[in-house]
């Protein structure tokens, strides 16, 4: 197992190089001038030229790429062109927000999605099956920005139940340790902050959970249906095991592998792709940060953030693979 993990981690290196080349080339192929986006459209050509020189944007691409990768190798993600801050600290401030939102959304998606999928499979063609599967179809086809706005309208404007945006109310004090606000509020035993942070998480979390929830529910259902037809399930039923035990112990465990794969993939997507949710709910996370950086041609930020997201994606996949062995002992990673 350890060998396997080490091998997988080593295989990260070519992934990083590949991703960095793609990110670098894409950014430089897109028209637009970072100097212009910093100095504005009124800057004179001389001013632009001075800045380009200062930012080494006049170097050949290969030199720029070399400089970038050289820094990465020493653990330095470089500085943002726009804000002049180190990219590492800027991402560090935003990544926890995205991780918290993603974990929260995935928890909702997995709990509800798996449960709904299992029940739908066990009671195939029942009203619950039909209802939850049409709900799932609705869920995968839902544009998040529309759903998000409707949620804000309903829960914030009309009903006034939940705060429309942000992570924490301004008057709430919270000592930041991990920058995951729910965790911090538990660690500092701050009940008010926990409830406030939770209320802020609820709407964006639900909005973000919609699509993965729907996908997980559908995957669980079809996977369960297949397993339920197997002989050993009939045997388990025949030898008189309780129905619940058969479903959760015998069937779900074996139906879990494809579901796990989907969960892993969705998790990766959410980490990098919460852009719309973060925008609608003014969530200060990585998604918005990257989009802003792309728009202002902030090369170091885009390149480094894409790298980090890629690494997280690979790690999530690795964890998924390791989890396979938990669910199916027949799988040997070595």
């Amino acid at each position, binding site marked *: 197992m350890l060998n396997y993990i080490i091998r997988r981690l080593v295989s990260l290196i070519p992934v990083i190089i590949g991703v960095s080349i793609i990110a670098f080339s894409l950014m430089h192929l897109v028209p637009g001038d970072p100097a212009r986006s910093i100095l504005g459209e009124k800057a004179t050509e*001389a*001013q632009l030229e001075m800045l380009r020189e200062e930012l080494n944007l006049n170097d050949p691409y290969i030199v720029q790429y070399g400089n970038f990768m050289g820094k990465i190798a020493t653990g330095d993600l470089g500085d943002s062109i726009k804000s002049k801050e180190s990219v590492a600290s800027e991402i560090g401030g935003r990544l926890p927000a995205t991780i918290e939102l993603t974990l929260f959304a995935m928890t909702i998606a997995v709990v509800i999605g798996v449960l709904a999928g299992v029940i739908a499979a066990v009671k195939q063609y029942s009203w619950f099956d039909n209802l939850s599967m049409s709900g799932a179809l609705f869920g995968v086809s839902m544009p998040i920005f529309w759903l998000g706005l409707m949620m804000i309208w309903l829960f*914030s404007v009309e009903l*006034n139940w939940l705060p429309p945006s942000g992570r924490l109310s301004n008057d709430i004090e919270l000592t930041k340790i991990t920058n995951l606000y729910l965790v911090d509020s538990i660690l500092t035993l701050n009940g008010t902050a*926990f409830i406030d942070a939770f209320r802020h998480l609820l709407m964006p979390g639900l909005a973000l959970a919609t699509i993965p929830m729907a996908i997980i529910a559908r995957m669980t259902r079809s996977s369960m249906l297949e397993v339920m037809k197997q002989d050993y399930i009939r045997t388990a039923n025949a030898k008189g095991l309780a129905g619940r035990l058969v479903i*959760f112990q015998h069937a779900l465990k074996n139906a879990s592998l494809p579901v796990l794969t989907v969960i892993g993939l969705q998790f990766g997507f959410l980490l990098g792709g919460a852009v719309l949710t973060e925008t*609608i709910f003014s969530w200060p996370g990585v998604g918005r940060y990257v989009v802003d950086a792309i728009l202002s041609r902030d090369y170091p930020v885009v390149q480094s953030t894409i790298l980090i997201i890629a690494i997280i994606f690979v790690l999530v996949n690795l964890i998924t693979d390791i989890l396979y062995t938990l669910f199916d002992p027949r799988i040997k990673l070595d």
Partner: protein
Amino acid sequence: MKKKALWMLLTVFTLLVLVVAGCSNNDEANSEGEDSNSQDTTDSESAEEGSGGSSTFVFGRGADSEQLDPSKVTDGESIYVTNQIYDTLVRYEQEGTEVVPALATEWDTSDDGLEWTFQLRDDVTFHDGTDFTAEDVVFNFERWTEGAEYVYYGYMFGASDENPSGIIENVEATGDYEVTFTLSEPNAPFLNTLAMPPFGIASPDAIEEHGDDYFKNPVGTGPFIFEEWKQDDSITLSKNEDYFGETAKVDTVIFRVIPDNGARFMELQSGSIDAMNGMNPQDIQQAEDDEALQIIRRPSMNVSYMAMNTDKEGPLKDKKVRQAINLAIDKEKLLSLFEGIGKPAKNPMPPSLWGYNDDVEDYGYDVEEAKSLLAEAGYGDGMSITLYTMSNPRPYLPQPKFAAQAIQEMLKEVNVDVEIVENEWDSHLSATENGDHDMAFLGWTGDNGDPDNFLYVLLDKDNAKKGSAGNIAFYKNDELHDILKQAQTELDQEKRVGLYEEAQEIIHEDAPWFPIAHTTPPLAVKKEVQNYIPHPTGSEPFNYLELN
């Protein structure tokens, strides 16, 4: 066993989630019950308001500030905030662009217009407690000559690599509270330029203390003191009790970033913010119908136009053809594309500027007259020209492509065949600066509120150089040039007004442009907010506004 533990964990977490959700709903119900006439149950400021005299004004906007050092930024969202923190030597009056005293109480100009002496206030302290003196002004001006990152200094005073201080030859403290500028050439717009927010005077101590991080720790003399910046989230300012001018009526100002226009409007409706900019057009009507809200329109400081290339061989060299095109386009109809935020333009500068000539009468829509002018010019049988347009919306032109198509249709009526050439913004700029076009859309947002900043920049022959043209009509009129040059050195304000009025008449007659519109971006503000007076330059200090 492992699996059981996992399920236990999940169950416990789900229960926890449900319990917390339950709690919070109860909370909400309670507070709503107690405070039924206010919608602001979720926000901090309402709680504060209720508990005592402290008041908070929350302004919602689409993007965060880039830096809080105004000398280095060009984005409006940075200036919006720094406008609260800093003062300039002189400032614009509350509603227009006439200049009034600020850090300087009075000023004198030498007869040759080269020496400007300012008397400064002696009762001003920076937010860090240090006293404001003439040396601080010198320090700031010298700092701005240090590099290309001080964009507006370079741009407004013509600084370059070879001449880093531009037209300002020397800045000297000629007394504790007297500073003298020596210019290399007379420059009448100088005063208007000094009023620009990028030239806010910063505390030299703070700049030295914070170094590269100064932009996160701004220290000025303005009506509000910087407190906290949560990036991508909010910027908090508190009232400066010792402000030398009008002390603020609110204790705290919070700028909040809410990227989505629709979500921002809903926050305003739900009461968690007090004012916002950047509205979706469809929300404007809704805000007007809402009893709790008001729409305030910012006076325009911009212009959108279709320039006609007078330099290129072809029909547009002829004044009659250009006039005919002005007559053949129905401006009212074109403005329906502006979704309620555009006012028709007849001059190259907006009416919010002093010197605007309201006596100029627009060409009006008259197809017959246009046809006869074209016939006189020899184009009665028709002609073909190009219209270059940018693909992306601009603040002064929300739907460039539709506008181009509308003009194409309208000009068909007078036998003018228009080919639309659409380019992405950067390419559009370089194509038009090079004069590739017959006609082209462009616009301009003013900098210092001086007519020179529109008329000279956009229509003088000095700026009609291929490759870097501001004057993309490549319009060259010597009479106009003389007037604009004279107005640049004339220090008598009355005379300058007269010169610019005359200039606008000449431009109208020669018709190098089809002026399209001045946009007046709406702000939606809660009715409780009084005295919110939007300034044409795009932002305003909040020390006058009150919350009822």
